[in-house]
């Protein structure tokens, strides 16, 4: 057993580290062989887990594959190392204001939101215009300097920080709102605009941004677009693929691709902007965005409801769709374990102190007519109370209560991790058929016993589970970690789910794409990447490693 594991380990490193010497024409890593071994190994791995208790040394040797690439990836030596010439050249492009070499600032920019991933970039650039971005990329391409496009650095999969010494190109200085059409609601702005700033700007005009998420105070629209962020109201406003009307993107060779159309309908040729939405900065750098924004409707109601079991939650979703219909704007859930940790660490109080239920739902309605919405909500509440689907609940009576309820739901992103309040949190963002969604949580709880706390919350209306496992610290050698990966991915794949519903693959899940995509699909993705970024300088080691 030992020998086979070691052999597989060695092969894996070889396939991973550099591109195959035989295929010198392509710079993409040939990991097809790696993928095969991964599959074979992970299947036998599951058998091993069933028979042998975790913690045995040889098992730890064997699990070489199944851990995230962080411990296995080697710096691609084809990328140049920065020298003084380069820094001088960049300084000429962005000016002294746009060049950051300060140790403290770099430390922050090199570390991700979860404090799980840390790069060692020696240089951060803050371009002030698309032209500057174009010049940066053109030069970087010619010198083969790897770059990481960065926005608000709120990503959860290590996609926004360098893995090694890649140069960080932060779009934060490009934060102007270019135009807003008050009739059509079409907003055009630069990629570095902070989401909350855009929403406030729109609110003054009676509109709202169709995307909302916990990170809104820090995240930038360029990053949101590049990760196809889903957020809290996807159930009502749809995804960015539908709301983004146009993009301006800078390609790896410095070409500025102007697809900044602000037309609601434009069926002329291939809709290339869709490629960049969700590409996580690996195909091009988004510099400008044109968004269709909906009307900001005045009547908002939020209910915080307690359910006994997961089946009730599912039925609640059906009832909500039936009774609330077009005014339903959010359907979120949080389980009691997650809620307990929030209440312990965030200073909020329990909205339903007498309820000791396992599941809590946050349901929001947004509409144009308060009395109409209140009536719908009252009917809905009466129905679900009579049917016994809901044991207790409260409806927010004013804006303060509304924001309190939302803070509770968003605390797992906003307060607990950045303040280190939940220890090391392993986050998994999965799309699972709604009926099976919570089974994974219960299975994991059993597997892990008391070794770590498993909490769950998420966008139940979209079938999106945010699974969080809280441990004392990040230690991929800890025996319990074994029980999590790759089990979570395999279970999700077996139930035809997605290993990344909305967070993206980034660095953390770069090796996991095959759990949710066929080999042919991944192969075509590699070809597109090779075509658009032949030198592989855009956000390397990420998405499809």
């Amino acid at each position, binding site marked *: 057993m030992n020998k086979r594991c070691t052999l597989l380990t060695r092969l894996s490193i070889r396939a991973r580290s550099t591109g195959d010497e035989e295929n010198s024409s392509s710079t993409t890593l040939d990991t097809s062989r790696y993928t095969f071994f991964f599959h074979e190994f992970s299947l036998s791995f599951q058998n091993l887990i069933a028979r042998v208790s975790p913690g045995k040394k040889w098992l730890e040797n064997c699990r070489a594959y199944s851990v995230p690439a962080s411990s296995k990836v080697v710096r691609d030596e084809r990328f140049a190392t920065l020298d003084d010439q380069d820094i001088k050249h960049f300084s000429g492009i962005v000016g002294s204001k746009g060049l950051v070499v300060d140790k403290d600032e770099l430390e922050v920019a090199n570390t991700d939101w979860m404090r799980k991933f840390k790069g060692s970039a020696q240089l951060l650039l803050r371009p002030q215009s698309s032209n500057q971005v174009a010049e940066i990329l053109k030069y970087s391409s010619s010198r083969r300097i790897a770059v990481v496009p960065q926005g608000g650095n709120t990503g959860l999969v290590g996609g926004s920080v360098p893995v090694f010494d890649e140069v960080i190109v932060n779009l934060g200085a490009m934060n102007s709102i270019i135009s807003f059409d008050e009739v059509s609601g079409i907003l055009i702005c630069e990629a570095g605009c902070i989401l909350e700033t855009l929403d406030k700007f729109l609110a003054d005009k009676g509109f709202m941004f169709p995307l909302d998420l916990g990170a809104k105070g820090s995240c930038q629209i360029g990053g949101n677009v590049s990760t196809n962020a889903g957020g809290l109201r996807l159930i009502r406003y749809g995804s960015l693929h539908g709301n983004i009307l146009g993009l301006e993107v800078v390609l790896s060779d410095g070409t500025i691709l102007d697809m900044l159309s602000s037309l609601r309908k434009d069926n002329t040729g291939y809709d290339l902007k869709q490629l960049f939405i969700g590409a996580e900065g690996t195909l091009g750098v988004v510099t400008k965005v044109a968004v269709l924004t909906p009307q900001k409707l005045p009547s908002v109601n939020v209910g915080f409801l307690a359910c006994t079991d997961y089946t009730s939650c599912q039925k609640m979703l059906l009832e909500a769709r039936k009774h609330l219909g077009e005014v339903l704007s959010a359907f979120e859930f949080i389980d009691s374990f997650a809620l307990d940790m929030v209440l312990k660490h965030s200073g909020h109080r329990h909205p339903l102190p007498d309820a000791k239920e396992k599941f809590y739902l946050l349901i929001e309605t947004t509409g144009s007519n308060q009395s109409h919405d209140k009536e719908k909500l009252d009917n809905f*509440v*009466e129905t679900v109370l009579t049917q016994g689907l809901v044991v207790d609940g*409260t409806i927010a*009576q004013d804006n303060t209560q509304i924001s309190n309820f939302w803070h509770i739901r968003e605390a797992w992103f906003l307060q607990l991790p950045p303040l280190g309040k939940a220890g090391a949190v392993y986050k998994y963002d999965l799309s699972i058929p709604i009926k099976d969604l919570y089974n994974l949580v219960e299975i994991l709880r059993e597997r892990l016993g008391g070794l770590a706390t498993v909490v769950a919350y998420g966008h139940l209306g979209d079938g999106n589970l945010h699974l969080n496992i809280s441990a004392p610290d990040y230690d991929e050698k800890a025996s319990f970690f074994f029980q999590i990966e790759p089990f979570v991915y395999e279970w999700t794949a077996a139930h035809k789910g997605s290993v990344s519903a909305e967070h993206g693959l980034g660095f953390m899940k770069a090796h996991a794409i095959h759990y949710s995509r066929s080999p042919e699909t991944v192969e075509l993705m590699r070809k597109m990447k090779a075509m658009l970024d032949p030198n592989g300088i855009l956000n390397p080691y990420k998405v499809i490693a």
Partner: protein
Amino acid sequence: MSMNPFCEIAVEEALRIKEAGRASEVVVVSMGGEQCVETIRTGLAMGADRGLHVITQDSSSLFPLAVAKLLQALVSSEQPRLLLLGKQAIDDDCNQTGQMVAGLLGWPQATFASKVSISDDKESVCVEREVDGGIETIQLQLPAVVTADLRLNTPRYATLPNIMKAKKKSIQRVTPEELNVVIGSDLEVLEVTEPPKRKAGVMVASVDELLDKLKNEARVF
């Protein structure tokens, strides 16, 4: 329309007094236009027994003295033993109504309450007040007027079963005329202005530039 936060604390205190068995009924009162009904419903959803709505044409003409006179009229018909108010309204920040109505009724008053305890015989109330020097503890004969301060309690969320029950609770409507109160405009608002907008800071690129601006623009030295 949301309830004035201090009034919400007053409602919560009233409910706690009732739950402790020291009161038999909690009545919530609001004065103004139709939006008041929503606020009263919130009070009922929290657990109050019934509501009283004094309808006036225009809420903005209700200054503290008018409110105090209307309350005085309501008190004479309702005969409550305790009148609980928020210490002030957050729209005008007057902090006058509680004191004025106590004066009109000739009742003892305890304002800025941070703790309220009704005696066992329900004849008096002991109130801890937040004053500049610290906490002042006073005892009042009932009936009395108490105004609530921030630290008195944390108001409960209205739960669904109570929200449902609240729909069946009654809200009685009265007009100032029925109460024989003439609402005079004893105060005239001359002007309401925002404080001057804070000027945005200026980012400087170097210490030299900072010194230059301090010397030549801010004229600090």
